[in-house]
């Protein structure tokens, strides 16, 4: 029971991080019907900005964690938003009316480009960050095994949940969210009603990039080790999360992310760490066999 609880806490933390990345995949897919394979790299860039910014703030003598965390989050979101915007502008917009395969290939190209760009600028060695937020709560202690909820986990969980809630409200209630959903359902009609479709698509990339940046900052804090290649596997898993939840569905991405995190944590906790990725992808395959549209994805039922 104690062990179960501990894995649950770890799984939810990890799952929240995946969910933040998955939202970017699902939103971009929703609006332009294409998988942004460079999205994992945006997350990786967010993580690098976190390492650089935390180190720089440390050198400047700013060690009060709440302030430095806030500054780093803002820097990471700001810079990756620029990357997200530029990726769309350079790699996807020129191919908007091209056959579907073309933007897919340029997405993969963009992903390789960004990996190599960071490798050239930052070197291929891993980057480390000393633990910034230490300590935590001991929830339970039975026969020498204690269930711990670290302060960092609390911060990650709280921020993730509030970001996801805020995001859901933006999509469901604001004119911007409505315009995004309109572009998703009928881009041409949206433009006939006065929606600037290009701008709406750009903003979608920017929003997705911002959330991926937050995930990047969290991962840096959580594991303390990053390299230029982390975007690949994290991106793949977040993509899996989006598909598992039902690609195009915001709630699905959140649910899928949490599930992937939990599956990973429990598999690693009860079976073997080596095969945790196998478990994740196997479950994806099984779910898709029985529910091809994902858990919350809906087949389009429309009356003509």
């Amino acid at each position, binding site marked *: 029971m104690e062990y179960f609880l501990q894995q649950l806490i770890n799984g939810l933390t990890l799952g929240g991080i995946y969910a933040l990345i998955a939202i970017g995949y699902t939103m971009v897919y929703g609006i332009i019907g294409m998988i942004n394979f460079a999205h994992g790299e945006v997350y990786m860039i967010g993580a690098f900005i976190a390492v650089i910014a935390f180190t720089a703030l440390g050198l400047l003598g700013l060690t009060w964690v709440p302030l430095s965390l806030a500054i780093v989050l803002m820097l990471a979101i700001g810079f990756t938003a620029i990357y997200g915007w530029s990726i769309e502008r350079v790699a996807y917009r020129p191919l908007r009316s091209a056959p579907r395969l073309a933007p897919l290939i340029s997405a993969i190209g963009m992903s390789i480009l960004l990996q190599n760009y960071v490798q050239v600028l930052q070197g291929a060695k891993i980057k480390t960050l000393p633990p910034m937020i230490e300590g935590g709560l001991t929830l339970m202690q039975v026969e020498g095994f204690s269930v711990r909820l670290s302060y960092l986990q609390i911060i990650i969980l709280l921020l993730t949940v509030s970001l996801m809630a805020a995001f859901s409200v933006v999509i469901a209630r604001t*004119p911007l969210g*409505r315009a995004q959903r309109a572009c998703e*359902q009928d881009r041409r009609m949206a433009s*006939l*009603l006065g929606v*600037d*479709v290009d701008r709406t698509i750009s903003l979608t990339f920017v929003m997705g990039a911002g959330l991926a940046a937050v995930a990047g900052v969290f991962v840096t804090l959580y594991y303390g080790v990053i390299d230029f290649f982390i975007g690949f596997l994290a991106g793949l898993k977040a993509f899996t999360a989006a598909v598992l939840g039902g690609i195009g569905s915001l709630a699905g991405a959140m649910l899928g992310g949490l599930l992937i995190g939990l599956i990973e944590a429990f598999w690693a906790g009860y079976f073997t760490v080596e095969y945790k990725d196998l478990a994740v992808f196997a479950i994806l395959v099984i779910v898709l066999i029985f529910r091809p549209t994902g858990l919350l994805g809906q087949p389009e039922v429309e009356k003509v």
Partner: protein
Amino acid sequence: MLSVAGIRTFYGQIEALKGVSIEVRQGEIVTLIGANGAGKSTLLMSICGNPQPRAGRIVFEGQDITRLSTHAIVRHGLAHAPEGRRIFPRMSVLENLQMGATVADPAHYADDLARVFKLFPILERRQQQRGGTLSGGEQQMLSIGRALMSRPRLLLLDEPSLGLAPLLVKQIFRTIAEINQREGVTVLLVEQNAFHALRLAHRGYVLVNGRIALAGTGAELLANREVRSAYLEGGHGAVPA
């Protein structure tokens, strides 16, 4: 109010409009009739810049809108209820109407919504229902209502009667007349139902193979022998009233 001068629009290599000129004056209902594929919908879409004509000029209220992008054109005060209605299927009726108000002054929103609900009371009852689940007639009302939400001075309507039961067709045409007379909205109407359209319109144009073949008042065209034989007698869409 709207002047289209010699526009030529292409789909790839195919020339869909081969130099079309029409005039729409303030307060009029002008109708475009013609067979399938004559270029009627293309003309309406070209006015909205999607696709943009390769040659010619479109001037709306004194401003050249030929090279503007679609979302900029509709900001000038024209609205389009396009072919096939294009309701956002996974949005509620209310959200569809809110989308219609994208370029409108938010201060008008409550007034405009009340106006649309008065015109189409069924929409008020269905406002929380998803657009995709409405019947064809309801979708048509929603499509017109959505276009009216931006307070357009010129309303482009593409086949509002398509696929509707005769009783509904009459109702839609009555509403178009009402929008024109009571609200002072100028209307450019594309119809296959030439009989109804010509009776309603002040003037009409007959489009054949991407060219204007005939122009005149509604009554003139109704009386014209070629029009009668091609579009009214035995032709599709000719519903005797």
